[in-house]
């Protein structure tokens, strides 16, 4: 029966019954400009020890990038995606976490893992090519470096939720690139995190490029941080070359997460100074004049200027930082110039807890082949013929 058939029924234009906004949008929106601290009066409140610590980590980080790049040229790494220019993000991500927290790095973020304390040789195992992951994730609370873009983000959400359900005070910080934000997994992860209020921090390093594709071909959003509001979580836009801003905002987001405040999306605006990897030729898609302005906005230079401007960095401190960086680099050289020790039988050992019968047969085959090669005296360095 329609209303028309009910003479005299009054017409009350009521609002749709269930409507109310689930949360206020305004507080979720990022600042219109990337947040900066260094060079502003706010920086003066920062602890000098912290600043010096960050500085040391940046100097070491830069040296790490240089050394890894050199090792790659020397054929000691299969490939190296450098974070030169992005050291502030890498270091801040690592430092914002407490020991019990988890880091979920992308394939580019070996430096973040190293800044968290991981042995560079372990961090570089994937890129060296001797195994996929060089460390026990649970021991270091660093998930495996993740190559399929954005796929690590739901892992971070799941782990944080598991910890939350167990009542453990654990925050997961997951890193992804500007390109990675276009993937469906980015969307699904952020949505799950917001709905479940899991203690996760999503850090987008917007370094301007996904290989050759510039940000303008990746998104039309005001900023990547604006995506946050669509999930009902706060978005923060920061200068990713300002180590102090990055450290502050990430620490705050970690705090918020542990306090039950749920996830945060942080976009760090930075720049990939090197090519995508050693295998890439950046001149094919960008000119040096595009890169140039970023040299003046170098994360180390920014922090150094702050420190020296305020008389917080003696030449001795700087020298100590350089020495520590050199020590790390020397260790990398020494250990990565040595050949990796590999056991081909590892190929079968970890596919399942118990190898299948088929795997056992294949294992025997390979064992026999290796034995035969050894007999022929040409075992080492033999290529698949």
């Amino acid at each position, binding site marked *: 029966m329609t209303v028309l058939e009910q003479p005299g029924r009054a017409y009350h234009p009521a609002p749709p019954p269930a409507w109310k906004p689930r949360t206020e949008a305004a507080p979720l929106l990022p600042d219109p400009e990337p947040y900066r601290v260094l060079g502003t009066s706010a920086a003066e409140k920062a602890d000098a020890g912290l600043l010096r610590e960050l500085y040391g980590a940046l100097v070491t980080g830069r040296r790490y990038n240089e050394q890894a790049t050199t090792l790659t040229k020397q054929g000691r790494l299969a490939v190296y995606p450098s974070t030169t220019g992005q050291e502030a993000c890498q270091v801040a991500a690592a430092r914002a976490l407490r020991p019990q927290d988890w880091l979920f790095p992308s394939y580019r973020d070996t430096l973040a893992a190293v800044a968290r304390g991981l042995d560079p040789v372990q961090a570089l195992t994937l890129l060296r090519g001797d195994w996929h*992951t060089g460390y026990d994730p*649970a021991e270091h609370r660093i998930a495996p470096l993740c190559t399929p873009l954005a*796929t690590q983000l739901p892992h971070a*959400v799941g782990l944080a939720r598991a910890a939350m359900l167990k009542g453990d005070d654990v925050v997961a910080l997951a890193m992804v690139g500007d390109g990675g934000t276009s993937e469906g*997994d980015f969307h699904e992860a952020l949505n799950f995190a917001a709905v479940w209020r899991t203690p996760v921090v999503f850090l987008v390093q917007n370094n301007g490029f996904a290989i050759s594709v510039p940000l303008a071909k990746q998104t039309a959003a005001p900023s990547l941080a604006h995506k946050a509001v669509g999930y009902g979580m706060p978005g923060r836009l920061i200068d990713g070359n300002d180590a102090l801003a990055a450290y502050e905002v990430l620490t705050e987001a970690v705090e918020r997460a542990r306090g039950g405040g749920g996830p945060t999306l942080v976009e760090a605006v930075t720049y990939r100074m090197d090519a995508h990897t050693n295998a890439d030729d950046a001149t094919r898609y960008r000119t040096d004049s595009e890169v140039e302005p970023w040299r003046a906005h170098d994360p180390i230079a920014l922090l150094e200027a702050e420190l020296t401007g305020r008389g917080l960095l003696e030449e001795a401190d700087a020298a100590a930082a350089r020495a520590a960086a050199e020590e790390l680099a020397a260790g990398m050289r020494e250990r990565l110039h040595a050949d990796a020790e590999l056991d081909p039988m590892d190929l079968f050992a970890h596919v399942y807890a118990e190898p299948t019968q088929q795997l056992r047969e294949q294992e025997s085959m390979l064992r026999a082949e290796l034995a035969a090669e050894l007999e022929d005296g040409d075992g080492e360095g033999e290529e698949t013929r």
Partner: protein
Amino acid sequence: MTTTAVAGTATGRKPATMAQALTRAMRDAMAADPAVHVLGEDVGQLGGVFRITQGLAEEFGEDRCTDTPLAEAGILGTAVGMAMYGLRPVVEMQFDAFGYPAFEQLVSHVSRMRNRTRGATPMPLTIRVPYGGGIGGVEHHGDSSEAYYMATPGLHVLTPGTVADAYGLLRAAIASDDPVVFMEPKRLYWSKAGWDPERPEEVPGIGRAVVRRQGTTATLVTYGPSVPVCMEAAEAAREEGWDLEVVDLRSLVPFDEATVVESVRRTGRAVVVHESPGFAGPGGEIAARIGERCFHYLEAPVLRVAGLDIPYPPPMLEKHHLPGVDRVLDAVSRLQWEAEWTEGG
């Protein structure tokens, strides 16, 4: 098929259908181990569209049996993270075809995490996939996707053909430290058979095929929804004087080669039967393996009876797609019982 309806009631305590056995398996696993968490679309209050998770949210709370947002990659991806933290997630994919959005997480992470970390990070995950046709479902509700999972090293693939196995295999899957794609033949959900719900603990273990019916003249190798079809075919074949053996694989990965090979060497003839499309389907591996390991025992080529090489058809035509008793018997009749034979073009 000869089935004996069990004297159980339809309550949680005495499951009688395969659906109820599966529910019971999850319930028992959750009761036994607080690390077991169920998640998926509509698995909570609704109990899943097939009601397989019915009662779990009520009994264990919504944190243990959780309605997720509608995003399969997100579901499986978060389950990976939960497993990294030591939980044992049991994920429900609502239908076979809706597992595809989670394919990348499955192939790139679930199947590889243990290997990637040299054993440090196992993936004790169970992924439940209602599969196959025969229930009149519209497009995307009748796929048999097991070939994809079988071709992915690092996954186990189990599928029950009986009510008892549904319970036992699902318990085994959840107990496994490796990821298991657990394929549930949806048209057997409401089948009842001689399973004693008072003694649900008999778990056959992963990787063991079973001879469902002993026979001497040829072996039918099958699994999941085709098990009842083969049993019925074997009964019908008696009239023709054939005494067929039926091997129910139960576990597609690991593949129990020994049981299959032993049977076929003994009978000398084999037909592989499944509902998934034949071309590059599970039967390819099985027939190839029989061909290799039983070569000198075979009296006839190994034949395959499978779904047609087409996208799953609409409900009104699915009967033409599904391998039924007649097609199985027809294949058996082509196993070169005569001394003279001619080989097709």
